[in-house]
C-alpha cells in the first residue's frame, strides 16, 4: 500500500503564526496599548454613570433615533431588568467591547471597501479572503488571537474585529459599485477626478448600503464578543461561560436574557436608523 504523506498544513500555519508573533510584536504591542486605553476609558465612563442615568439616556437616545414607542420601552425596561438581575457591570463591559470592536471594524472595513471598489486588484485579493472569513466558524478566530495578545480583552477585541469586519468591507464596496453608470459618466464628463467622484457622488449614494453593512458589523460584533468570553472577554458572555462550567442553569439563562435584550435593542435601533437613511 502506498502511504501518502500527511500534508503538514497545521504545522505550516503554526509556523507562520509564530513567525508573525516574533516579527510583528511591535504592532501587536501598539494595538494592545491603544485598545486597552480606549477600552478602559470607555468602560470607566459607562460604569461611572449610575445605572438609572445610563438607562434614561439610552431610552432618550432610542426615542430620538427611532421615534418608536415600542423600541423605547424595550430599551427602558430591558435595561432595567438587566440591572435588576445584577448583570449591570457585565452588560456595560459587553457594550464597551462591542462599541470598540465595531469602531475598529468600521475604521478598517470602510476604507478597505472603498479601495476594493476603486481598484480591481484590491477587489480580487479581498473577495476570496472575505469568502473564507465568512465561512470559517467563529471559534477559529479565537485561536490566533491568543499567541498575539494572550488571554484577555484585547484578544477578544482582535477576534471580534476579524469576525465582524467582512460585511463592512463588502457592503461599502457594493454600495459604491452600485452607483448608476450614467451618474459616474456624468461625474467624469463634468471633469471630476477619481477623488471628487468618490466624495461628491459615490459615497453619498452608497451611504444607505454602508449603513446596512455597519448594522451587520455591530450584530456580528455582539455575537462574537459573547463567544470571546472563552478567551477572557468577561462581560455577559463570561457570565454564561461561568454558569456553564458550574452548571448553574438559572444564572446562565439570566445572562442569556441579558444578551438577547442588548441584541434586540441594538438591532431595532440600527434597523430604524438604516431605513430612515434609505427612505430619504
Amino acid at each position: 500500500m502506498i502511504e501518502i504523506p500527511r500534508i503538514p498544513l497545521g504545522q505550516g500555519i503554526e509556523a507562520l503564526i509564530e513567525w508573525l508573533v516574533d516579527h510583528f510584536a511591535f504592532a501587536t504591542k501598539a494595538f494592545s496599548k491603544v485598545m486597552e486605553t480606549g477600552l478602559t476609558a470607555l468602560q470607566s465612563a459607562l460604569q461611572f454613570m449610575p445605572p438609572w442615568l445610563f438607562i434614561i439616556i439610552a431610552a432618550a437616545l432610542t426615542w430620538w433615533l427611532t421615534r418608536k414607542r415600542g423600541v423605547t420601552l424595550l430599551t427602558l425596561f430591558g435595561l432595567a431588568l438587566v440591572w435588576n438581575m445584577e448583570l449591570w457591570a457585565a452588560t456595560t463591559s459587553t457594550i464597551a467591547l462591542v462599541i470598540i470592536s465595531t469602531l475598529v471594524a468600521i475604521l478598517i472595513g470602510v476604507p478597505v471597501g472603498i479601495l476594493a471598489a476603486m481598484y480591481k486588484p484590491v477587489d480580487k485579493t479581498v473577495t476570496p479572503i472575505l469568502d473564507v472569513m465568512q465561512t470559517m466558524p467563529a471559534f477559529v478566530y479565537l485561536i490566533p488571537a491568543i499567541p498575539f495578545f494572550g488571554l484577555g480583552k484585547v484578544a477578544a477585541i482582535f477576534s471580534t474585529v476579524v469576525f465582524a469586519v467582512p460585511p463592512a468591507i463588502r457592503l461599502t464596496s457594493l454600495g459604491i459599485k452600485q452607483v448608476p453608470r450614467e451618474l459616474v459618466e456624468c461625474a467624469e464628463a463634468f471633469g471630476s477626478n477619481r477623488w471628487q467622484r468618490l466624495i461628491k457622488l459615490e459615497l453619498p449614494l452608497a451611504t444607505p448600503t454602508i449603513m446596512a453593512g455597519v448594522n451587520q458589523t455591530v450584530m456580528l460584533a455582539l455575537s462574537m464578543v459573547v463567544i470571546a468570553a472563552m478567551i477572557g472577554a468577561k462581560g455577559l458572555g463570561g457570565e454564561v461561560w461561568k454558569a456553564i462550567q458550574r452548571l448553574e442553569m438559572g444564572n446562565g439563562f439570566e445572562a442569556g436574557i441579558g444578551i438577547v435584550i442588548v441584541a434586540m435593542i441594538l438591532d431595532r435601533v440600527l434597523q430604524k436608523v438604516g431605513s430612515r437613511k434609505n427612505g430619504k
Partner: protein
Amino acid sequence: MAKIEVENLYKIFGPHPKRALEAVRKGATKAEVMDKLKHGVGVNNASFQVEEGEIVVVMGLSGSGKSTLVRCINRLIEPTAGSVHIDGQDVTKLDDKGLRELRLSKLGMVFQNFALFPHRTVVDNAAYGLEIKGVDQATRRQKALESLELVGLTGWEDSLPGQLSGGMQQRVGLARALALDADILLMDEAFSALDPLIRSDMQDELINLQEQMHKTILFISHDLDEAIKLGDRIVLMKDGAIVQIGTAEDILTHPANDYVERFVENVDITKVLTADSVMKKAKALGYINSDGPRASLRKMKIAGISSLFVIDKGHQLKGIVYAEDCSEAASRGERDIKSILKTDLKTVQADTPAMDIINLLHDLPYPLAVVDDMNRIKGVINRGALLGAIAERGVN
C-alpha cells in the same frame, strides 16, 4: 477650421482590439468580427465635422454606435484609432489633466436619463461643473441660477431632482451643461426619455435657446422627426459606420442607400406637416374700411411684399390687393381699395396637409392664406416658408 473634426475614428470593444481593428480596416463587417473574433464594433471609420454654431444630429437604430461615437469625442470612451480635434486640438493626445480641463471648458454634456445626482438640490446639480472647476460658492450659485432661469426653472432651485417631472429634470440636465458656458453641447438622446408632448416642447425650447446662444451642438437621436426638426445637418449611422451626411432635405430626397431609404420612408412628411406648422404671421395686412391705395402700397413697401391681404375689423378675410393695381388706383386719385379688391381667393384651413398646399401653391401668384372656420386670417404660407419648414424644421 471646423469646431469638431472627427477623422477615421474606430472603437472596438473587447480585450484585444488590435486584431479586430485590422480585420475591420480590411472590410470585415460588425457581425463577422463578432462571430469570428468575439469583439464588438462600436464605431467603424467615422469621419465628419461640426461647424461652429451648427446643430448636427447623429441618427441611427439602436446599437448603431451613436452613444459610442459621442463618448469618443469627450473620451468617456477611449477611441481605438483615429483622431478627434476640437478647435484644432487633438483630444486623443490629451493627458488626464488636459482632458478634464477640456471637458470643463468646452464640452457640456446632457444625458438620456438625465443623470442628476439625487442627493443634490437642483441648483447644486446645475452648479456641479462649476464646483469641479473650482469656482467659488457665491459665483457658481449665481451662474447656476442664471442657467436655471434660461431653461425656465426659477423657483425650483432648492428642490431635489426626485420632486421634479421628467421634463423638468432634463431641463436641469440642460442647465448643468449650460452653466459651464462651454461652446459645445453633447446631447445623447437628451429628449428620448420624455413623453411626446414634453419632448416637442423641449425641442422648440432648444431651438429658441440656440437662437440666443449659438452653441455648437452634437445631438444624438434615434428619431428622424427629431433629427429633421433640430438638425442643420444629419449624420446617419449603421453598424458603427456613417452611411450618409447631409441636410434633412438631402437625406429625404436623395437617400444614399436602402438603409437610409427605409429609415426615411417611415416619415410621411406630407401627412404630418400641416398648414399651421408651416404658416408664418402675415407681415402686413390691409384694412378694408380705413386703408386706401396709398396706405396699402406703403404697407407693402415696408414689408417687402407685392400683394396684401385685406381684412375687416373682425379680422375676417375680405380679399387681396396687388401692388400694381394700387399704384394705378392711386394715380387715378381713388381713395378706396374696394374697387381693386380681388375676392376669389384660395384659402386653406389650419389642418390642411402639406401635400395639398404644395399643389395649391404651385400655380398661385400670391401666398396662401390660412383661415379658421369664421374665415378669420391665421397666417400665410408662401413657397419659401413651406420649403424652409421641410428643410429646417420639418415634421412638427
